[in-house]
């Protein structure tokens, strides 16, 4: 087309795409961490009860 249009579209796709991937990876890792600590806590009582 003329380079500028493509650059603009690519910038948006890259910007939003990389932020979205970062969010997905971060939330996955965190969920693993939650499972680990839940196991660690074992039978002890905890104050959070909703399952995430």
């Amino acid at each position, binding site marked *: 087309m003329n380079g500028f249009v493509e650059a603009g579209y690519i910038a948006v796709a890259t910007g939003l795409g990389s932020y979205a991937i970062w969010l997905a990876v*971060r939330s996955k*890792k*965190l969920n*693993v*961490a939650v499972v*680990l*600590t839940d196991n*660690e806590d074992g039978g002890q009582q905890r104050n959070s009860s909703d399952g995430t």
Partner: protein
Amino acid sequence: MEPESEVLDISSENVTDWKEIPGTKGKKRKIKRSAVAAIFVVIAALVFILYKGLSSALVYFYTAQQAVTDKAQLGTSTFRMEGVVVPGTVQPTPSGVNFSVRFDHTVVPVVEIGAPPQLFQPSVPVVVVGHFQSNTSNTFLSDQIMVKHSANYVAAHPSRIKNAGGTS
């Protein structure tokens, strides 16, 4: 930088021997210091932008008419001037382009040094950056043309509209 990373560490192998509360001792200090540094950077940026804004954005340009009216006061200082390129006046020169801009009934001849932007053409509103040649001459010497296009968008058809800028 990321305070979350300490929390994430629990997911690695040191789960069992992990006894530090995140955000205590040295770590807390470090986070705070970098955050305070970040805030100073932000404040510096704010000051810079406000300075630029106050010195340039408040009166971003004079219309060609205002420029001629205030000529005595403007002298040969540099400012931005807006006007519509008068059709039939555009003449390419070895160093750039000569043309006239018009605002209402005031016409100012412009001598541009440098290549005009892609969308530069007769009848479009432009903002030229530069100064009057001298206190007596009405010619405006410019070293930059910016095309001020309108917010109207029309699908390209064979019948081209005359005044693409639509400001006059």
